[in-house]
């Protein structure tokens, strides 16, 4: 009875406010689209600029479309102009980044999965302190470890090398990967593990037979997170490498800042797009997992 009256009151209320509602919705869409243009604007400008000639850039404005699709700047950004010294282009650095990202993502994800597994399914006294101990690593400002890290890489003989960057990114990825896997495995019923232990399954068998098969979503989240972080890193790349061993973000920055010749904004923009495209593709294809990583990395990281 009660429920019926309140429902009626509710529908009446809904009707009364129809006109205001419509105005409100127009306003809503207006604001949402306004912000959408603010967010899309730089990407649009980057793309159209990269397709124009310098002549067109000087004559038109940021928004004018190129007269024809001209991919010359992209070729210059990727392969250079072909005159030896001083000709910087992104291709070798793009591969540097790939060679750096793939092993670093693999190792940090693997270590994180193992650590998360132990911390949730083989609990021991003080395990939550161990977790907290690792978790704090997510937050330290890396400036506090730059100097000793530079020396350590020197002592190990891997400064200014891709291997050095792989080590750095693996180590400082562990807190995050541990966080992801730990939070995921915590929701897997421990009874499953207990039953398997009674049946005589060992530590690794339980991991590979029970946990790994259901880990696909969290592996995707972790891999995307680590990939994005490492691909986009500039601080480590610029501190621990230079010249030929630099990753792409460092190369992009050097290219844009080089003041040797006339500023070619079209090449700059093409370079920026090339440096941003891998993470952008991942975002478009797997946005759901990207956001999950962001929010769960954020909620406690």
């Amino acid at each position: 009875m009660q429920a019926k009256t309140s429902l009626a009151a509710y529908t009446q209320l809904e009707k009364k406010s129809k006109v205001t509602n419509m105005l409100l919705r127009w306003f809503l869409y207006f604001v949402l689209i306004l912000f959408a243009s603010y967010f899309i604007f730089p990407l649009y400008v980057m793309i159209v600029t990269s397709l124009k000639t310098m002549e067109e850039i000087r004559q038109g404005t940021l928004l004018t479309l190129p007269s024809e699709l001209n991919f010359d700047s992209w070729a210059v950004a990727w392969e250079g102009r072909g005159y030896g010294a001083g000709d910087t282009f992104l291709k070798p650095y793009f591969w540097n980044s790939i060679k750096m990202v793939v092993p670093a993502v693999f190792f940090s994800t693997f270590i994180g999965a193992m650590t998360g597994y132990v911390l949730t399914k083989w609990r021991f006294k003080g395990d939550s302190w161990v977790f907290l101990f690792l978790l704090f690593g997510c937050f330290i400002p890396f400036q506090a470890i730059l100097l000793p890290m530079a020396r350590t890489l020197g002592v190990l003989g891997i400064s200014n090398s891709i291997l050095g960057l792989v080590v750095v990114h693996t180590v400082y990825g562990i807190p995050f990967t541990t966080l992801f896997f730990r939070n995921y495995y915590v929701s897997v019923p421990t009874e499953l593990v207990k039953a398997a232990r009674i049946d005589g399954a060992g530590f690794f068998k339980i991991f590979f037979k029970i946990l790994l098969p259901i880990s696909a979503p969290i592996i995707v989240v972790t891999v995307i997170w680590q990939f994005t972080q490492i691909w986009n890193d500039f601080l480590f790349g610029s501190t621990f490498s230079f010249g030929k061993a630099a990753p792409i973000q460092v190369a992009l920055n050097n290219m844009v800042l080089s003041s040797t010749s006339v500023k070619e904004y079209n090449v700059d923009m093409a370079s920026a797009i090339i440096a941003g495209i891998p993470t952008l593709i991942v975002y478009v294809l797997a946005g759901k997992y990207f956001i999950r990583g962001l929010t769960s990395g954020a909620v406690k990281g």
Partner: protein
Amino acid sequence: MFKWLEKNLPKVVLAPAVGLISWFVYGFVLWTFYISFTNSKILPRYELWGVGNYAKLWASHKWLIAVENLFVFTSLFLIFCTVIGIVLAIFLDQKIRAEGVLRTIYLYPMALSFIVTGTAWKWILNPSLGIQKMFIDWGFENFTFDWLVNREMAIYTIVIAGVWQSAGFVMALFLAGLRSVEDEIVKAAKIDGASLFTVYWKILLPMMRPVFFTSFVILVHISIKSYDLVVALTQGGPGISTTMPAMYMTQTAFHKSQVALSATSAIMMFMAVAAVIIPYLYSELRRENAS
């Protein structure tokens, strides 16, 4: 031996992570802390020298500018990201058509590096061919927008680009928060005659306290560490007008070879982050234990 291994296998597997983090995080921070009390120049020296570097740092004109910039940047970055994030989240929560597309647009900058972002905005904001020229060509002949090369205003260009990069992230956090609230609460309030505005202002936003807290911590964290964006957009210039602590630290270490002074600035940054993070971790952990 085999028995021991079998019994302690979990701890053995845990060892690499704990060992690496102990050494590379805690050990390194302690090393940096120690060095800040020495008189190291190009190479680290280990005899203690006292707190001289801390005095020197806080007497340094450039460091004071960096700290001031950090305060300006952090407060504006926080305010704009939070306000824009909340507005977008609430608006998107109104059963909007094409919500997925809009959400994707708001959040994609998070997938880009600060170097890419900085490069793009540097081009957009450059006075000779960027936005300024656009408005002049449109007929606003006296339009000037030269913040990028203006000592007083350059710091705000970093805010513009930073907000562009991170506001969508706050939106995602709040949207997730709003979606986790039971529909019944909103309906009940509407039946009681509450307007939509009241529902959000009086009921839903107060419920979002943990989300406010989280996004505050993350944003402050991002801004204290911000380095790449400054490098790509202004290189700390014009002059030293947009230097930030992270930039001061690397420049002092690697260009000026003042290792101890640089370590000191790194420790100041570390303490600033710790002051925000430790209470946060503490409350998060308590919440988790309570549930």
